[in-house]
């Protein structure tokens, strides 16, 4: 059977029927238009980032990262991502599991809520947190130091600051990257259905066993890609973080905010050098994605190759 399929694939690959394809000039001009578009809008900007960053040579390029404030920005970005991504991973998996494997009231509402951060402008997301946790916000008075009777001595002494501090940046990042994992998983899990889980139930597996041994292996590539996207956004988020950050150098600046400051100070070369870090992150994300897909494809091909061997020997 597999032999037949690979033969068919071979025929399809090597003997395209002329009647089914467009004339050569149509094909080539379409390819040219596509290449031109990709070149103009993707390749040229990408190249310009590195060109600007390396304009003054390799020394100044690395000097941009030696700066104390730049290092603080990188550290803060990593911290925010390290908190936001795992939380959204757990949340995304739990939400997709609930939405695709169970029937319950308010499912549509939950789906809309998950997508809310996509619909809301990031600046508004930041403002929401300012309104909630800012000094004049709804919850602000209960967070800062002072003497409010409700929470007692211990709480007052904590002096939690959310806005213009790291917690605010982390919260804003979580909010903005909220949907990525769930959005990646829900369609995948909907296509897969719940039959395998049902089968596992009839075979006596417990909920955990079903999750780890049946569901996770089925969604692992989608999950990985969701996490990669979530991470890229967590590190690259500008709008929401900008509103809650307060732009305190060396303390509440993330990489994108640091780039902005450098650029506004006409320090173009340093701005592009730091920006190239984010560009590299994007490239790594793409490479990772392709490796994942390639490995997956290779596993499938290896499996069918073994199949053919068994048929021919």
């Amino acid at each position, binding site marked *: 059977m597999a032999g037949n399929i690979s033969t068919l694939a071979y025929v399809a690959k090597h003997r395209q029927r002329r009647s089914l394809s467009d004339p050569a000039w149509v094909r080539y001009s379409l390819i040219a238009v596509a290449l031109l578009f990709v070149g103009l809008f993707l390749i040229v900007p990408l190249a310009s980032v590195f060109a600007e960053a390396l304009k003054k040579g390799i020394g100044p390029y690395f000097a941009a990262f030696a700066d104390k404030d730049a290092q603080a920005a990188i550290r803060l970005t990593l911290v925010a991502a390290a908190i936001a991504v795992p939380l959204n991973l757990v949340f995304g998996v739990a939400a997709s599991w609930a939405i695709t494997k169970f029937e319950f009231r308010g499912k549509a509402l939950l789906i809309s809520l998950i997508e809310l951060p996509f619909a809301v402008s990031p600046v508004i997301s930041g403002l929401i947190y300012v309104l909630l946790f800012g000094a004049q916000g709804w919850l602000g008075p209960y967070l800062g130091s002072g003497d409010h009777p409700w929470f007692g001595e211990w709480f007052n002494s904590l002096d939690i600051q959310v806005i213009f501090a790291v917690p605010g940046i982390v919260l804003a990042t979580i909010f903005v990257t909220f949907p990525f994992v769930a959005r990646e998983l829900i369609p995948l899990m909907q296509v897969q259905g719940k039959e395998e889980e049902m*089968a596992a139930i009839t075979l006596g597996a417990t909920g955990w066993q079903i999750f780890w041994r049946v569901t996770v*292996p089925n969604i692992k590539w989608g999950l990985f890609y969701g996490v990669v996207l979530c991470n890229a956004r967590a590190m690259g988020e500008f709008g929401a973080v900008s509103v809650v950050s307060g732009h305190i150098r060396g303390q509440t600046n993330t990489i994108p905010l640091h780039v902005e400051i450098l650029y506004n100070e006409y320090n173009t070369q340093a701005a592009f050098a730091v920006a190239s870090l984010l560009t590299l992150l994007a490239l790594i994300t793409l490479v990772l994605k392709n490796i994942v897909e390639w490995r997956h494809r290779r596993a499938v091909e290896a499996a069918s190759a*073994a199949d053919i061997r068994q048929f021919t020997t």
Partner: protein
Amino acid sequence: MSIEARNISKHFGSYTALNNVSLKVETGRLTALLGPSGSGKTTLLRIIAGLEFPDASAEPGGGRVLFHGEDVSHKPAGKRGVGFVFQHYALFKHMSVFDNIAFGLTVRPGKTRPARAEIASRVNELLRLIQLENYGSRLPDQLSGGQRQRVALARALAMQPKVLLLDEPFGALDAQVRKELRRWLRQLHEKLHVTTVFVTHDQEEALELADEVVVMNQARIEQVGGPQMVYDQPVSPFVIEFLGNVNRLAAADGRLHGSGKDVLYVRPHDVDIQRNHSDEHALRARVLHVFSASNYGRVSLERVDTGEPIEAEIARDRLHDLDLKQGEEVSVVFRHVRLFPRGKFTEADLRNGQLSETRPGYLPAHGAGENI
């Protein structure tokens, strides 16, 4: 282990999937739930398995599923000791055939889980049983439909279930594989004697494979009985129409009547065609089409008086002897008929002998009665 379902109803929103259905399956039997799609057969199977739960029943003791007299209604599927084979197999895609079959054993809690070697030997034994000994390391994607079906069955059998439930086991397979697998399942059942219930919409499959056929329609059970019984003594127009081809002729007052409200049913193989016109009461029909490229000959006819179509199945030798011509007028004789007064008929009427589907004076040829 016997299975009993008592007064089961199931609604999905405003849709009624099962309407007060009761069913008893004896130990060791092979039972078919037969019906068109939407008749509730799969829902009933899933309720027996514990994958769905019935609505609360108004009847005392109703809405329950009993295995060997023990109420299992509140047991989850994994604790009922049922093996379930899904319509699309639901094999674990990322696991080898071996791991698929071993799954039910490896997820058992520590105390009851067999040792690794024992699991391996049991899986290998099952691989032999399903004739896939050398396929243990394959992934499900590398198997054909029939092979996957057998793996799904082995996976269900690995936990030595007392009840085996199969949802449309051959639905997704092509005709040839289907026939082979059917025969194989019958043999397997004779070997293992596990109480088995399978769902199908294919009457041929149900009649050929099952010890007992449960005919379902519109959320209810129409008839329960052996294959011979449901075929020869259908209790309702639905059953007779669902189990194979049948001619419908309008009748009234026990006679054929073009505008009658009753319905006379005749199976095509109970229709005979004759040339002699000796009987003046004989039904006259015109030959429309003769088709003999089959193991029996098929003749399409049309009643001369009312224009009602009649299909006949006739042995090829006889068809050859008759040498029918298109457009020719012939006499038609029914060997066996059933009559259902439409709308007035109930199951209770039939049981009480109130109705006789072959009334005297009914038949067009040779007077009356069955089997003339």
